[in-house]
């Protein structure tokens, strides 16, 4: 038997076109008669619009139209995650601000012109008279009395108040009876998703057929069609959304924004194609941001290191409006994961969503789970320190024992499978934990500061059972569907509703199909991204494409296989039960030399000259798949850092990651996902952070001001894995798109704090820049009078 294609690290089939410039992105498209749209955006964080003067722009040669809110006939931008039992407020989010702007970048007018640059120049001539109002950027402060109010009918800017609890009495009791309690105030700083390709849209209205085609940067074109048809007032079957090549998303291309809808509306109005493409600074200003929590968290434990309770109050900045999935992120995807991989009996999360005069926030890689894992791992290290226990042993003591088919946590979720300690031990062996502690002690004597951070995590992904989606207020389903079509010559078109944009499913899904029916990967095309030729699906996010769409694909392929088997049996004049399959060939049991290939069976089924009784012609199958549960990948990440005493620079010396996402279809692609994830998570720990000034002006508006991590900051990652299949997935797969980001932030953060133990530093605000670390060290040395710039000393 040849090497199995499942599990083989073949190269990504997407890459040649991506790295040779052959890929076509939305902004590469051009249509005859195409116009360009530019946006006039508010320079103020919060202001009444008194008057808009567009006369100059209107009169410029080449300007076709200028529109403000009063010209529009376009629905509001909806929020689509209406979290229940949270008193959720959903004030209208108009596509263009009518009477009030609520963040810097809020769109006020659009200019449509013959040329992109002309459109922007014309927008610059529009004069808007504003009455400037107070800004508020800190979500906790925004809830205080006297804070500027964004909406008249949202008191104290509170968008929702959501609570997940294992039982308040039990939580209270556990804290009251605890031997140790540690508390922390954690700032999950705002982050910029920074997809390599900014957003763009090209809309073409066909007045003859009444059809609208929108090419746009989308992670979920079917959701975009669903929502845009509503905003535009068009029947859904008359709207086609195409996500061509999409250059990354990290969550930022899930939401439906006003911009795409405005381009489409203008195309209808003017009966010409209209394109809009973001600049990078516009991307930083108006495309969603991630995180933005201020958390007050605490953990209770007994003196032997048994964690008895965890609780927290989260002020989650929603920005100026609720983005598409915004409210679901700091609630369902965050609070329900407060127990992590540990046997913590009591847990409570209160999450308060808050409007601030800032860019809206939404899912950013990990989306709620990085924040949950971070606070857990921070608190565990602090408990360990307080009890003078090794933080690894404290984790080990509290890990949930191995389980293969379901473990229900106090917050109600049922984890699918886990074997946490094995992953922990593997990672510890790789890093040489015991030896490191000796090296660290030795180094400290020499005035060198080494630190180690260990994270044992599990996370919820593979979103998810549609019934749960409905119960948690998600305004859609979370199933996937596929159509697999085998051509007469045995080539495969597999159409999926999910929409990969960098994750490599054109490769891994071809491997899944090939593994089931023996058709070579080269003969399989995965079609995605176009609502015109793919079946319905809810998109690519939440590490769901492989667990959900992948399951649909496997089941559909098995239908193909069974039809081919029946066809082969007919051709071999044998009973179906007597037909064996191996490597793309069907044969009568015991006679492997006399066979029909899958291609032969397909050809004969397609010609249909001689079909078995009752069988329809053709070789095609479709499959819907609604997962019975989420999947819960897990693992252990360990980092070693060294801090330069003279500069405070944190050097990441080693990084070990042992992840378990079940069986791996393609270990190279899994490694790629983990690599990218680690880098983004470390970015939060060490480099990244959105800064607004007190007037709500975004100060990190370009790549010169916002520190996206660079390759030079990283060592070679040392990866390994364990394999714990998901019991409910047809081939046991779990998602792996976000684990790196989820685990790496606390891992590196804890390593830095560990290194700084001689300075007695307990907690610092991220990012742990050289300046901040150096200042903390100086303060402890007593040789400088630095500010308290996010540093809290230990005692």
């Amino acid at each position, binding site marked *: 038997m040849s090497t199995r294609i499942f599990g083989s690290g073949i190269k990504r089939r997407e890459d040649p076109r991506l790295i040779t410039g052959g890929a076509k992105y939305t902004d590469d498209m051009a249509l005859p008669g195409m116009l360009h749209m530019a946006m*006039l*955006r*508010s*320079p*103020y964080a919060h202001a009444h619009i008194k008057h808009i003067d567009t006369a100059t722009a209107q009169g410029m040669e080449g300007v076709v139209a200028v529109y403000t809110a009063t010209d529009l006939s376009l629905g509001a931008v909806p929020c689509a995650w209406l979290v229940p039992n949270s008193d959720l407020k959903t004030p209208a989010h108009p596509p263009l601000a009518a009477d009030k702007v609520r963040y*810097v970048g809020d769109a006020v007018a659009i200019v449509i012109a013959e040329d992109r640059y002309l459109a922007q120049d014309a*927008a*610059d001539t529009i*004069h808007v008279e504003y009455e400037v109002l107070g800004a508020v950027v800190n979500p906790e402060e925004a809830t205080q009395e006297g804070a500027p109010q964004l909406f008249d009918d949202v008191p104290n800017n509170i968008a929702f108040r959501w609570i997940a609890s294992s039982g308040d009495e039990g939580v209270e009791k556990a804290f009251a009876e605890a031997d140790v309690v540690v508390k922390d105030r954690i700032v999950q700083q705002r982050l910029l998703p920074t997809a390599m390709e900014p957003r763009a849209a090209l809309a073409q209205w066909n007045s003859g057929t009444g059809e609208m085609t929108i090419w746009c940067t989308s992670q979920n074109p079917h959701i975009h069609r669903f929502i845009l048809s509503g905003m535009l007032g068009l029947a859904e079957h008359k709207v086609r959304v195409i996500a061509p090549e999409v250059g990354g998303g990290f969550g930022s291309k899930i939401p439906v924004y006003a911009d795409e809808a405005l381009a489409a509306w203008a195309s209808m109005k003017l009966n010409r194609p209209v394109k809009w493409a973001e600049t990078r*600074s516009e991307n*930083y*200003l108006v495309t969603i941001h991630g995180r933005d929590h201020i958390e007050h968290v605490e953990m209770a434990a007994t003196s032997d290191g048994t964690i008895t309770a965890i609780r927290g109050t989260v002020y989650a900045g929603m920005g100026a409006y609720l983005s598409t999935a915004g409210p679901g992120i700091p609630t369902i995807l965050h609070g329900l994961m407060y127990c992590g991989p540990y046997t913590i009996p009591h847990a409570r999360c209160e999450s308060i969503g808050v409007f601030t005069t800032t860019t809206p926030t939404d899912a950013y890689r990990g989306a709620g789970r990085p924040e949950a894992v971070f606070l857990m791992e921070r608190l565990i290290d602090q408990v360990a320190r307080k009890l003078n226990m090794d933080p690894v042993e404290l984790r080990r003591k509290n890990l949930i024992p191995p389980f293969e088919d379901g473990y229900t946590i106090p917050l109600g979720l049922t984890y699918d499978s886990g074997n946490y300690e094995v992953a922990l031990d593997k990672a510890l062996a790789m890093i040489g934990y015991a030896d490191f502690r000796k090296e660290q002690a030795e180094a400290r004597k020499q005035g060198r500061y080494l630190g180690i951070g260990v994270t044992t995590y599990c996370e919820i992904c593979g979103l998810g059972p549609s019934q749960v989606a409905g119960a948690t207020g998600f305004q859609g389903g979370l199933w996937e569907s596929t159509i697999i079509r085998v051509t007469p010559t045995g080539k495969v078109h597999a159409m999926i509703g999910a929409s990969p944009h960098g994750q490599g499913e054109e490769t891994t899904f071809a491997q899944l199909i090939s593994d089931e029916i023996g058709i070579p990967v080269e003969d399989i095309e995965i079609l995605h991204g176009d609502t015109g030729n793919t079946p319905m699906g809810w998109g690519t996010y939440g590490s769901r494409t492989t667990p959900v769409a992948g399951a649909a694909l496997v089941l559909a392929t098995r239908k193909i296989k069974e039809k081919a088997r029946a066809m082969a049996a007919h051709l071999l004049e044998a009973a179906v039960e007597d037909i064996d399959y191996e490597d793309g060939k069907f044969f009568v049991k015991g006679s492997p030399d006399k066979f029909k290939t899958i291609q032969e069976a397909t050809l004969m089924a397609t010609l249909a000259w001689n079909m078995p009784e009752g069988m329809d012609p053709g070789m095609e199958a479709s499959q819907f798949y609604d997962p019975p549960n989420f999947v819960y990948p897990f693992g252990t990440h360990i980092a070693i850092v060294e801090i330069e005493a003279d500069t405070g620079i944190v050097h990441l010396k080693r990084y070990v990651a042992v992840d378990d996402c079940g069986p791996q279809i393609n270990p190279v692609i899994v490694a790629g996902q983990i690599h990218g994830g680690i880098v983004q998570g470390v970015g939060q720990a060490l480099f990244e952070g959105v800064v607004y*000034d007190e*007037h709500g*002006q*975004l*100060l*990190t*508006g*370009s790549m*010169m*001001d916002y520190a996206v991590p660079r390759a030079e900051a990283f060592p070679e990652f040392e990866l390994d894995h364990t394999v714990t299949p998901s019991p409910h997935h047809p081939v046991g797969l779990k998602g792996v798109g976000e684990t790196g980001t989820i685990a790496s932030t606390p891992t590196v953060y804890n390593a830095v704090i560990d290194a700084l133990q001689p300075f007695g530093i307990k907690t610092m605000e991220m990012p742990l820049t050289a300046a901040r670390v150096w200042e903390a060290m100086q303060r402890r040395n007593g040789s400088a009078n630095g500010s308290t710039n996010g540093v809290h000393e230990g005692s």
Partner: protein
Amino acid sequence: MQIQGSYTFEYDQQAVWNILMNPDAIAKAIPGVKEMVPLEGETYAWRAIAKIGVASVSGTYSGIIRMTEIEAPDRYRLTAEGEGQQSVINGTALITMQPAQEAGKTVVVWDAEASLAGKLASIAQRLIKSAAGLLSRQFFGGLAKQLKAAEKEAKTVPAATSSHSMAGES
């Protein structure tokens, strides 16, 4: 954002005052000013168009420049409100003049407050202080040059004197 600075002119206070009240001279000295037209019905107000580059944001701004709180020959307040490049700039500076310790020289001190909104804030804010310092030096240096040129026209001046007529900002 607070910006303070000073500049020493090698001229007496009346000469400095005169040129600081001369809109034509000011229009010539403000870096990048393309146009400065008096506002109808106001004595000390002008509509101005300037082309300025700060960091990676370069372009044309239009706005209003006003002089208020005029107390000859000691002080006045200069305010500017401008917009352009998806940005709004607001600045107000109290400009004070007094004789320098050295006879015949005048120290001009400014105490300014500026705020930026929009693209300039998000891209250029961290550079604006140094840019403001540079623009201020260019502005007062430009005025000093004009004083010198006027002086040359009025009488013959020995070359040695003019070579150090541009004093630096302190």
